[in-house]
């Protein structure tokens, strides 16, 4: 879900994804580079993101990932689920012992 959300911001390559992930989560969520790529490939196989080779700003060829329609729907669904789940958890946690 996190990867989908990040890619929802716009197409970017694997390196950028890893940078952005570190940035936004404030180093709390550490996704190692070693598991990032398999995760991206998995999303691609599921058809939620698509990839194309583009030449980047420095004239370097890189693989850019972007969200597909299917992925957007999946993101909405998962965001929804997460919202429900987290609010449920926080309700439980906030329960005062009677």
């Amino acid at each position, binding site marked *: 879900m996190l990867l989908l959300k990040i890619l929802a911001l716009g197409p970017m390559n694997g390196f950028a994804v890893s940078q952005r992930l570190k940035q936004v989560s404030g180093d709390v969520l550490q996704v190692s580079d070693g598991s990032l*790529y398999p995760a991206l*490939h998995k999303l691609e196989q599921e058809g939620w993101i698509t990839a194309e080779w583009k030449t980047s700003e420095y004239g370097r060829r890189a693989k850019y990932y972007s969200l597909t329609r299917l992925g957007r729907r999946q993101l909405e669904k998962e965001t929804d689920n997460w919202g429900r789940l987290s609010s449920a958890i926080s309700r439980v946690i906030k329960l005062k012992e009677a």
Partner: protein
Amino acid sequence: MRPEHWLYTIPLRLRSLFRWTQMDQELDDELRDHLERKTEEYVAQGMTEEQAHRRARLDLGGIEQTKEKCRDVRKVNWIEDLIQDLRYGLRMLRKSPGFAAIVIFTLALGIGANTAIFSILDSAILKPLPVNDPDSLLIVDWINPEFPAGVANINGGFFPISAGRFQGSSISAKLYRKLAQEQTGFTSLVGIADPNSVAVVVDGQPAEQVSLQYISGNFFQGLNVMLVVGRPFLAVEDHIGQEPVLIVSYRFWTERLARDRNLLNHKVLINNVPAQIVGVAPPGFFGVRAGQWTDIYAPLAMRVAFSPAAGDNLARGEDDRDWWVRQMGRLRPGVSKAEATAKIAGLFRALASQNLSLEPSKVPELITTPGRRGFDSLNPRDASALWILMLLVGVLLLIVCANVANLLLSRSVSRQLESAVRLALGATKGRVFRQHLVESGLVGLLGGAAGLCLGYVLAQSVHLLFESGRDASSMFDLHLDVRVLGYTLLLSILTALLFGSVPALQAARAELNDALKSQAKSVMGRQLRLPALLVSAQIALCLTALFAAGLLGRSLKNLKWTEVGFDRENLVYASVNPGRAGYSAEHLRPYVDRVRDEIARLPGVLQVSTVGHRPMTSGGQLSRVSIPGRPFRIEKGVLTPEQAATVNWVGEGFFETLRIPLLAGRTIDRRDIRADGEAVVVDERFAKHFFPNENPLGRRVGFNPKDNARYEIVGVVQDTRYNSLRDEEAPAVYEPFAPDARSPVNFAIRSTIDSERLAEAVRQVIASVDPAVPLTEFRTQNELIDQLLRTERLLAVMSGAFSLVALTLAAVGIGGVLAYAVARRTNEIGIRMALGAGTGDVVRMVLRDSVSMTVLGILVGLPGAYAIAKVLKATLFHLQALDPRTAFLSFFALIVVAILAAWLPAQRAVRIDPMVALRYE
């Protein structure tokens, strides 16, 4: 997963499957790009180039590992792996073609035998009818506590079932038509009679015998069978007095009409009655009984027109007391089977009670049985023979599996090092297991393909053996179809799993340390336990096969040499059918006398006589005996064994020709042979049964309660077998032979010359008396007996062949394991010999291994042998299921094989030179 999702992902998967080199390249590029950027970043943070590069790689956690993980998420990885494994497997097979050939040949034997028997079993018993939606077909039969009241004759099935009741399958044509018209539970109810043999003349060519079936007008429409040419029958054509119309089979159309689409151009005579062909059935449509090919179909009502005029002047028409039409219905959609059955049974009760003027309670109860496979194509004995063969080939396949497993095992032992290295390099156990299984699967499929070819050939020959002595129109449809292909494929895969799992497990368990150590020689022990167990399993199964073959073989021998009561050697029967050439009753007598005299004059012929029913051919006649002054009871309208006697018609000199001893009185002679001849001869069984403690000579008997003094007993002869070698025979009566125009005349000939020369001579004699009457059949008595034992012989021959193959495989298995053991123990044997062991000791050592494996196998196999004996019990004749002689012979054969198989390895062990063996270390 949602379907649209699938739509989206499938191209991705395909892309990853077919363009995986490109994918890999891209993956490579992507990761390299990542590393470069990361390195740049670290350099920017102040690291040296080298440090930064190292750090970046560490972050990634190993390039190759990451790559592999990325590949794994593609989900089609297993297909790539599979292709890799298949390539590897093929390469391994190519590297050792001899090994591959042996494995594939062995598998082909096992799978081929199974395919062959299955294809016969399938076409004879399992396969549904070649019509549209066979599952909705129901056969309509009836059940009654007795022979149905008011019925004179039943043509079709009629047999006792449980609780003293009888089941029958046919009704009268008129009843059928009314039933078909008024019934509502079926979309259509079709009527069909059992096939008749008729003489057909096409466009003036010579007459031929073909099989004709009378069917209802709605037959082809009702079964949903589309004709390839012409039209089905019309309802109006099923009426007496209509112009006869015919539909012919595709085969008949091809062979006799050269596929001429202008059917109306051909002039056809059926039993000398002109008829018109209006349609051609589709190819592959044999009718409604597998293995029985009908050449010509005609409307039910044509039976009256086509039947040869009988001598008696009975009214020619359809009689409600004559039941001969079987019925099959297609269930109406939305109607349950029970509902349809109840409806038609009620309707039949009403119609039959009206037509036969019976109380409704006396009308048989209609029932329905599944019609998806049509009418039973085999008698229960033949069907069970096929199942027994299926069981035997199953055992054979297990033996083959054990054998192949052992072969693969011996190879995987030598490949232990390879597997161990793979495991050490990080392959998972599952992966190694899978790779070995894929190799086995490959071998299995290759074996299956070879087995299919072998099976096809084998099926044809088994079929010939199975059908020998039946007429040409009874052939099963044996072409390789999807069902047989599917069966073979499934069998190959199952077999591969079975024989492949053991070596694969072994390989996946490989430990590098062990493997490396075993390079440095080890004693046999543990390593060879598994192969030895497999060989024992093979012996166990082999015992089962041998025991079965022994029992079936001995049973056949018992049957074959059952005392028949006459001299079966040098006895032949020549048959002619003068009635078909136009001889009338009064001209027949002189013709028959003349032929008999001419044959008697042939050199080498000792005696000639005539007989109505050749002994030991199926058919024959049972009649109800009635005796003056004795009450005549009819129970349930059926012939009870107490009153039944077999009847035969014999000419003068018959008993002398067959060498049946006369016990009292005289035999039938010339003066008895006339239409009103009264003299009959009975056998001892008859005399004892009907006239216990009385002198039967001079007593009068009859076969009709109203004329029970028709015949006088003039002689008593010794008992003979009439129809069967197996069952108890009924008492027999011999009437004087009076030839009649409708049945063939058989000459029984006792001679001293061989049957082939005699056949030629007899053919010439018959042609010289009247060229218009051909010799229709010429059989020796022993041929007739063999024909009777067709099923038993098939079982004995096939089980014998299978057990020979099984024995050979067992011998190969034992020999292989022993050879391997000797090779591994070269060291040990060398030491033993150096320490003074003699040749005898070494040979004994090898033999002991062989015999102990065999004895273990025999012990394990005893329950299997017991089980197969139980299965075979019903088919055996005059033989205990646990026949000690057969058991002893089986054990003996196995031990002999064990000793023979040990011979080569023992020789090799003896030739070991202690010095060489020790230096080898």
